[in-house]
């Protein structure tokens, strides 16, 4: 049974970040892999999502975020499947050695493709920081909002593989998704 964990999904869901949990759940369901979703037990989860929160949410839950810092640090050390988005990306980058140091940059609000090594990932950037993507194995920290796993099949496959899911997506879903993903990418990047 694969355990998907998400931190305070009611509050850390600016821009539909919780869609990433839906994407993983559906991908597992399509492959007939058993899974559960929890918002309280993070320690032994196969995947952890901390989405983007508003300024009010970040102020209110700063201590709760701080309380999982050690846990996030351990996941970073081991490269375990984790996705930090937006304000969570900024929060942990400012506290965890091993994550990039962020500097202020002019605000950019647009779809953008970023490179990290051989990996190319696209999503919507809307912030004033200079580092928009970081990856250590399946540990991902990014300022690219929204359902990034839905849009980037390469990133999704890294996360699935890290959870031990290597089976192919059934043909019905695969054939439906491929042209749609191409369309999403073309529209976002204008190619």
């Amino acid at each position, binding site marked *: 049974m694969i355990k998907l964990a998400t931190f305070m999904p009611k*509050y850390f*869901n*600016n*821009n*539909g*970040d*919780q*869609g990433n949990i*839906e*994407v993983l759940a*559906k991908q597992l369901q399509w492959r007939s892999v058993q899974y559960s979703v929890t918002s309280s037990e993070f320690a032994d989860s196969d995947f952890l999502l901390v989405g983007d929160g*508003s*300024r*009010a*949410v970040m*102020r*209110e839950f700063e201590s709760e975020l701080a309380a999982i810092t050690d846990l996030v640090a351990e996941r970073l050390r081991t490269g375990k499947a984790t996705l930090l988005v937006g304000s969570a990306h900024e929060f942990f980058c400012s506290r965890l050695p091993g994550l990039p140091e962020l500097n202020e940059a002019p*605000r950019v*609000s*647009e*779809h953008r493709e970023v490179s990290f090594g051989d990996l190319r990932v696209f999503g*919507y950037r*809307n912030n004033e920081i200079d580092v928009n993507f970081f990856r250590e194995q399946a540990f991902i920290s990014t300022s690219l*909002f*929204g*359902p990034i796993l*839905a*849009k980037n099949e390469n990133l999704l496959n890294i996360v699935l593989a890290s959870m031990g899911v290597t089976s192919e997506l059934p043909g019905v*879903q695969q054939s*439906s*998704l491929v042209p*749609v*993903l191409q*369309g*999403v990418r*073309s*529209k976002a990047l204008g190619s």
Partner: protein
Amino acid sequence: MISILAVAVGRIVRFIIRIFRRGGGSAFPGTVASSIAPNLLSDAIRSARKGLVVVSGSSGKSSTTQVLVALLRAHGYKVFTNPSTANIKQGLYAAILQFGDYRGHIEADFVVMEWDEGHGAALVESLHPRLAVLTNVYSDQLDRFVDPELVVEKLKKIYDHSDHAVINVDDKNLTQFVNPEKITGFGLSPSIQPRPSYAINFGPEPTFEPSVEVSKLGEKSLQVRVPERLLSFETKADAPHQALNLAAAIAAVSKLIEPDWALVEKTVSNLPPVFARDEIASVRGKDVRFLLCLNPTSFTHSLSEISDQTSPLMIMAGGDISDPSWLWTVDFSKLKHVNVVGGKNAYDLALRLMYQDVQVDKIILEADKAADAFLELSGPSPTVLFTADAMRRTRRYLGLAK
């Protein structure tokens, strides 16, 4: 003299644009006119005898403005207003071009304007409204406003530079910054559920007794309590967020004039629907239901209004959505099947639908081709859900634009 030139040039630009795009071209002529005569808007507004009333907030601006204008006109006042699609600075200038005289002067008692939050905050210092109606703050358009707290700042600026304000007292994003002496409140009775989901706010919750309260929601009817009276309305706008728009307009009219309450009830009950706010229009011999979905709240409401058997069904996500990620905050899972997914963000919408196991037949980016494909389909309940940009394009193509 400069105003006459600005009006003339702006009107020529508008005329040329509308030759090629029927129903279009509201913003650019306004840009041209404002660059020639920056004072055109403020001069026009100052000519209104009873001053400027503005309506702003994340959602409900158009509906509230429409009802308020109708109520003032029903009481015999001349009202100048801007079309709902022209609530940004350029659009406000364009409205002067369209409805003002050759100098840009308007013949009106009241000017009632729907203001985009961002553009309104930039205009308010110079225009100084007599009354500001502030509807709500949602976690919406984050690609533009970044954070709801920045929307609050903009609305507070509008409030600070207005003589008086009509405020949704259910939304503490608004009540936290107001002075009780300077507001007239409206809200929902505590018994009405579900409540709208305003932007998350963990701050204090000041308590204000609303002067105008939606006391009961029925099937195509609602009741609103005003001081010493209970008003009854027949209306299709019977969802909580729609009832709040009506309450806002009633609170505003009660602040501006001495209303004839029987006339208020009659006027509201006879209001035509705003285009696509759950309107049925005849298109190519078919009665097609149109529902405008501006944000997650109205998308969710529109989905609750249609059957899971609706057929044929077209959903369109237009180019007004900069970042379609918010579509993932809408639950589409009640749907089994969407015949056509359209609009510039059609692929993003289709991706969202597929992850909720909703079957999608066709994905068509162009509004005209999507409309043609949809109208070829047979079925008992042709229905279109669309965002504002897709609505405008579809409306124009189908000849439903004025």
